[in-house]
């Protein structure tokens, strides 16, 4: 081994206190950044999970043109929910589940009170099959705060947004007898108004996206009301993992052709994608500030080392060490510190993230009864990039004290105490 490498390595061992201090700064810095990143990843994926499994699903399929016309005439662009079509979709690789939905609007009217008055409100509705939803959006039912969720696809039931009560000005009585049950009225595809008496079985937290005038009804009940037997406005799909959503969506587009539109959760809720990007940017700036402080500490320690070893530098120059070799000596020291510090820091960071992952961080979605544990994770390529950048920057900044050492005048350096 080259004697300058030996000297670099031994000097780190010789000045154990300063080496440990410098390493400590790197280890703490890297492991804190990793823990923070892991935590942020957990928060982000909790948001994404809440949206996907709680309402949106991973992929939605509509009739072509549905997204454009959903507000004016949602019922016109409906899918024929046939076993053949389902089979075709389920045959696409990675697709593991499917749930049909029927989105429509209606008038909700309370039963008349003793004075004969009733309250009426316009509202948005979703017809769902509870059993299928269990596969594609299993957390939807967790938004139930009072009573129960819909029990079966062809029951005459309704679950209403909790805050609807405030809008219609009367309390929704889940214990009401049949004569007090509300009526849901809606125009069918042909434009004629139909009505159905439904049992209010539960209330939903208002964390479901969209208007507060919102309710869920069983799919078959909705179909009957709308005279839309065998039809659906959307299919929600579950695929084997979030990682394959994009490729599966592409496969589905190919399989289904231009008659249908296929949208991923990212397209359906663009705000989540933007939030991920924004948080990424903020984190980036925090990292820069944080690493700057740590790296300045390391540079300071290296300047002290140069100062203490001035005479040694003069000695080396007197036996013929060149300026570039002096630079090399200190950069090698910085590099060795950086490599050891980065490795230890990554190990420590993984340890903390493992602990958080193992025990989980409990959170509950706002308004939901559904509590769960966030599990921080790290993207190995992010860790690799972060570790390499720490090594690169620490080595690069060590050029500064190294250069200063190499510019010392040999005679003056030899006279130093």
């Amino acid at each position, binding site marked *: 081994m*080259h*004697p300058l490498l*030996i*000297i670099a390595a*031994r*000097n780190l061992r*010789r000045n154990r206190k300063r080496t440990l201090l410098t390493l400590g700064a790197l280890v703490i810095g890297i492991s804190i950044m990793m823990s923070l990143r892991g935590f942020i990843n957990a928060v982000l994926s909790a948001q994404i999970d809440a949206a996907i499994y709680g309402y949106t699903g991973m992929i939605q399929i509509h009739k072509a043109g549905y997204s454009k016309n959903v507000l004016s005439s949602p019922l016109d662009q409906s899918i024929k929910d046939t076993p053949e079509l389902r089979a075709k979709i389920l045959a696409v690789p990675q697709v593991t589940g499917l749930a049909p939905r029927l989105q429509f609007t209606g008038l909700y009217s309370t039963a008349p009170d003793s004075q004969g008055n009733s309250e009426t409100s316009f509202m948005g509705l979703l017809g769902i099959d509870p059993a299928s939803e269990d596969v594609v959006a299993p957390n939807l039912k967790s938004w139930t705060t009072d009573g129960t969720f819909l029990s079966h696809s062809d029951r005459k039931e309704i679950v209403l947004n909790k805050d609807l009560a405030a809008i219609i000005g009367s309390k929704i009585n889940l214990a009401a007898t049949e004569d007090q049950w509300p009526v849901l009225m809606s125009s069918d595809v042909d434009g004629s108004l139909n009505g159905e008496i439904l049992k209010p079985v539960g209330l939903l937290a208002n964390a479901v996206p969209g208007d507060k005038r919102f309710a869920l009804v069983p799919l078959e009940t909705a179909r009957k009301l709308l005279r839309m037997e065998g039809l659906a406005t959307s299919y929600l799909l579950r695929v084997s993992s979030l990682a394959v959503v994009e490729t599966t969506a592409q496969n589905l587009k190919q399989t289904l052709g231009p008659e249908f539109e296929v949208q991923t959760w990212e397209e359906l809720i663009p705000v989540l994608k933007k939030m991920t990007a924004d948080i990424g940017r903020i984190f980036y700036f925090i990292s820069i500030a944080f690493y700057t402080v740590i790296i300045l500490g390391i540079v300071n320690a290296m300047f002290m080392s140069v100062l203490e070893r001035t*005479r*040694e530098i*003069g*000695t*080396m*120059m*007197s*036996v*013929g*060490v*060149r*300026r*570039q*070799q002096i630079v090399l000596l200190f950069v090698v020291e910085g590099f060795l510190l950086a490599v050891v510090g980065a490795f230890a820091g990554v190990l420590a960071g993984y340890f903390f993230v493992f602990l958080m992952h193992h025990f989980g961080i409990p959170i509950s979605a706002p308004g939901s009864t559904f509590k769960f544990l966030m599990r921080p994770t790290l993207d190995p390529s992010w860790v690799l990039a972060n570790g390499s950048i720490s090594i690169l920057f620490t080595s690069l900044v060590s050029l500064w004290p190294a250069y200063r050492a190499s510019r010392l005048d*040999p*005679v003056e350096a*030899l006279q130093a105490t």
Partner: protein
Amino acid sequence: MTENIIKISGVTRQYILGKTVIDALRGIDLEIVKGEFTVVLGPSGSGKSTLLNIIGCLDRATSGSYILDGEEIAGRDFNSLSEIRNRKIGFIFQSFNLIPVLNVMENIEFPCLLRKDRDPNLRENVLKICEEVGLSSFVHHKPDELSGGQRQRVAIARALITSPSIVLADEPTANLDSKTSDQILDLMVNLNKNHQVTFIFATHDPRVMDRARRTLRIKDGKMETNY
């Protein structure tokens, strides 16, 4: 055997400190023959170290000419001076100046390891020179495990391992007690005899005079006697 290894003519060295100019050397003329043991004698501040540093290519003369081993030294850059120091100069300092993290053997071989062309017999030569300076049983010791006299022996061995044209010793015995000083002095005189190495020895200790074949007296940056 009367080849001049060093030819210095009209060398000056000025230090400029703000508005004051210090003339450390005021026109030195000097020729040194190969294999000589020369003592430079002079009081403190007379310019001995300045002269040795210029001869050793650690410092540059303000003016004048300096020819070492047939090569003009003035006007060379740092790296070229490093090369000359490595190949032609051996230094022995008052405060030993060993590299603390290297052991005796590593300190001695260090100048040779900086070279691109490595001598395959280096380790052998190191052990031989260790024996010569009386360090055979200390080759694996670190400098802080040695006495002052032993450290200076390491420095002497390091200066000689490269077979330099000249060895410069700037008050090498000033940090040693008189008994050890005598031993170190004897050692250097013997090495000079056995290896035909040119020695220049700066001191203000007149006792050293008796051992020298040639004594130069320097005062206020000028040679008083030059024979």
